[in-house]
């Protein structure tokens, strides 16, 4: 589910804007102090499942009995355990439990304190000051201080895959051991999401980077400590007794073992037989059957990922908006979603799902499967006998399925769809070189509208492979990026989104659900809207 390689995988936060909104709203008052709230927030929100968990599963009983180790099956092997240099979802499943970020998306996906207890914004919106939690220890015993934040952020900017997220950051400085200033070139209302939205922005221990062990022996501040990785034993983590939420009884598990089972069917069988306690995904066609099975719980929440395809606007006739609109009109999104996801998805003509209440725009200008309307548009454009080289990849099999459905849906228009199915590495090369009439994939882990639109639709941006260029959209996206009033910002994005949909820069298809499954013995775990895999409050019942 990862965009991988040049596509940083970030964990999405559907509703996260709440905090940004709060921060922005308050800035009339010159400075925002979330500090007061933060103290309690830490305990209440972050401790939510922790509180219930601690009472429900007394850690003492577990300690007395044999170690409580959760076996979690993931679909692929982490490529590296260096959080700044990986884009693999498998890596983040592990690292989510090893590392911390300055702040983090909470259960409702709004940003809550983590390593930073509070933060303030200067009157000119150009300096964010983070007050760090004291007494936090890395897994190697060293205390976490402001220099670690500076080091981590500077490393991400210099060599990390997510350096672009610091585009508006001028400098990061340690004021003292427990205070960090982030200075910006332009106001960035979505800074928290940018610099702490997922574990790709993790705070790492400097010494592990310097001695080169970070990729194989990650040292963080999170609830679990990395122990070992081996082909037979998988990845072994053990509870971090010095965790900064140890006072709340967290983590509850004594350890986690991640095993890798690439075949989805085998993985499911392993869960059924009790060989593993938790699996990271369920094939869509198995969700219904599995939900009614005794002993297994399926966690399913609407996700913020979106599936789309784009036509190459550097090539005629796809540079003609009428041709793109014709295709957007002729397809049937509901059928595509049903075909690929067996109902575990919601058709959408825009990027941001309805579950993202803050930024969702209810806008669906296209008829579904309107062949006559599409034909009229094509006739108007003077295009006939259209042939589309459609770039997909078997590494994300749903793209192959969807392309076949689209081929069938476009057939009545006399459009020939030549599906080009290549491995993902080749796919990325071909996409990058513009060798396609159309390509299809998904974007995952978005929360802020800037993530959804800027890199993909702003003229000349790195992810704008389809060659879209609309000066009005550029102006709106640029303005929205620095607009600190959330209502005004939303208005700007709504306008831009409508134009992007009208111009069919991307042809949006649907938002899939996030799905995990686990045995009934597992408690204190919930599938999250941002797909982050957090076992901090998880326990096993005998």
């Amino acid at each position, binding site marked *: 589910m990862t965009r991988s390689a040049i596509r940083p995988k970030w964990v999405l936060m559907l509703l996260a804007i709440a905090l940004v909104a709060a921060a922005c709203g308050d800035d009339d008052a010159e400075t925002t102090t979330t500090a007061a709230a933060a103290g309690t927030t830490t305990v209440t929100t972050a401790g939510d499942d922790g509180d219930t968990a601690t009472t429900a599963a007394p850690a003492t009983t577990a300690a007395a009995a044999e170690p409580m180790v959760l076996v979690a099956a993931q679909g692929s092997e982490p490529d590296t355990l260096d959080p700044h240099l990986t884009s693999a979802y498998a890596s983040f499943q592990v690292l989510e439990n090893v590392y911390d970020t300055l702040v983090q998306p909470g259960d409702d996906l709004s940003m809550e304190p983590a390593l930073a207890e509070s933060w303030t914004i200067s009157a000119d919106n150009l300096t964010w000051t983070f007050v760090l939690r004291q007494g936090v220890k890395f897994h190697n015993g060293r205390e976490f201080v402001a220099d670690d934040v500076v080091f981590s952020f500077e490393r991400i900017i210099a060599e990390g895959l997510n350096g672009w997220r610091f585009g508006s950051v001028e400098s990061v400085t340690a004021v003292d051991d427990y205070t960090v200033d982030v200075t910006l070139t332009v106001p960035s209302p979505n800074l928290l999401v940018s610099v702490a939205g997922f574990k790709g922005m993790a705070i790492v221990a400097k010494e592990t980077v310097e001695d080169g062990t970070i990729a194989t022996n990650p040292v963080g501040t999170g609830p679990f400590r990395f122990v070992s990785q081996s082909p037979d034993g998988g990845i072994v983590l053990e509870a971090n007794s010095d965790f900064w939420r140890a006072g709340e009884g967290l983590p509850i598990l004594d350890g986690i073992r991640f095993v890798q089972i690439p075949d989805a*069917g085998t993985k499911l069988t392993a869960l059924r037989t009790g060989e593993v306690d938790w699996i990271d995904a369920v094939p869509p*066609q198995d969700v219904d*059957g599995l939900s009614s099975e005794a002993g297994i719980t399926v966690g399913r929440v609407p996700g913020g990922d979106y599936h789309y395809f784009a036509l190459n606007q550097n090539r005629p006739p796809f540079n003609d908006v009428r041709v793109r609109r014709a295709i957007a009109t002729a397809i049937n999104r509901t*059928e595509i979603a049903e075909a690929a996801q067996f109902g575990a998805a919601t058709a959408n003509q825009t990027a941001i799902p309805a579950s993202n209440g803050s930024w969702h725009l209810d806008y669906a200008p296209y008829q579904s499967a309107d062949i006559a309307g599409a034909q009229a548009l094509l006739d108007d454009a003077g295009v006939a006998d259209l042939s589309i080289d459609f770039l997909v990849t078997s590494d994300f099999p749903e793209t*192959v*399925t969807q*392309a076949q*459905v689209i081929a069938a849906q476009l057939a009545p228009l006399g459009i020939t769809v*030549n599906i080009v*199915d290549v491995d993902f590495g080749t796919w990325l090369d071909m996409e990058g070189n513009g060798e396609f009439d159309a390509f299809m994939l998904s974007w995952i882990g978005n929360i802020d509208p800037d993530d959804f639109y800027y890199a993909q639709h702003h003229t000349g941006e790195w992810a704008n492979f389809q060659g879209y260029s609309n000066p009005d959209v550029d102006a709106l996206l640029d303005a929205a990026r620095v607009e600190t009033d959330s209502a005004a910002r939303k208005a700007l994005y709504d306008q831009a989104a409508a134009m992007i949909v009208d111009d069919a820069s991307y042809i949006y298809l649907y938002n899939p659900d996030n799905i995990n499954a686990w045995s009934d013995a597992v408690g204190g775990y919930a599938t999250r809207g941002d797909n982050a895999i957090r076992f901090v409050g998880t326990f096993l019942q005998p």
Partner: protein
Amino acid sequence: MTVAPSTPMERLPEKPVSRSREIWQTLIANRLAVAGLVVLALLVLMAVLAEVIAPFGINDIDIPNRLTGPSMSHWFGTDDLGRDVLSRVIIASRVSLQVGFIAVGFALAFGVPIGLVAGYYRGKTDSILMRLMDILFSFPAILLAIAILAVLGPGIRNAMVAIGLVYTPIFARITRGSVIVVSEEVYIRAARSLGARDGRIIFRHILPNVLAPIIVQTTLSLAFAILSEAALSFLGLGVQPPNPAWGRMLAEGRNFFQQAPWMGIFPGVAILVTVMSFNFVGDGLRDALDPKQKSVIESRGQSV
């Protein structure tokens, strides 16, 4: 022990049966080979008439009727997009046979001349050509095909080229070996001493005498070429969707094996039947063409 005088098995020394007739008779005496021939004939017929026979189009998507089991309207059931598996298996037979025949044809067209030249001229020519073949031969066949497709890009045409290239050295080797043996025969020396040109010797005198192993190898290679095509399709390197190929259908069926086993079973059976038929025919041909085997077959025929 005793043979009825009227059986065709009876052979009179003074009236020898022609060689081709003899081969044919040995071949059809082999029941498995006959069965293979019949199945292959039906397969070819099916491939030629595929569009007429197939009850549905290959990409007739019908989501509400997805993953339904075999029934009167869909004999082989439907796949995850509600497409008729029978129709797709039928249309895919064309791909398999086409790739098989063209790829092996390619291998023949290059391998046999290389083997002829190398075996006849020997010396440096032989060394250079055969070392080139050895290089190709040193890679596992399917791995080399994947590597070639990685360079050329996926697709049915490139798959044919890749498979053809992989099988070329086999034909070159087999041809060369036979040519070396035949070249020493007295009649070749006689032809040479009569002043026959190389071309004439190679094509008139050597080629006909090395055909037997080539024919056997061709039949067996067809089976392996079809298997290779299925393997490449399984990996997504062959025919591109929505066009069906047995290997690709197997790969798709794998994900639905619990809900819809027919998605994988029928294409799998199709591969099995086709490859086995070619193998049976190939074995039969080898028995019929191989002089060393012939006596065994005959004695078997006598004792039945």
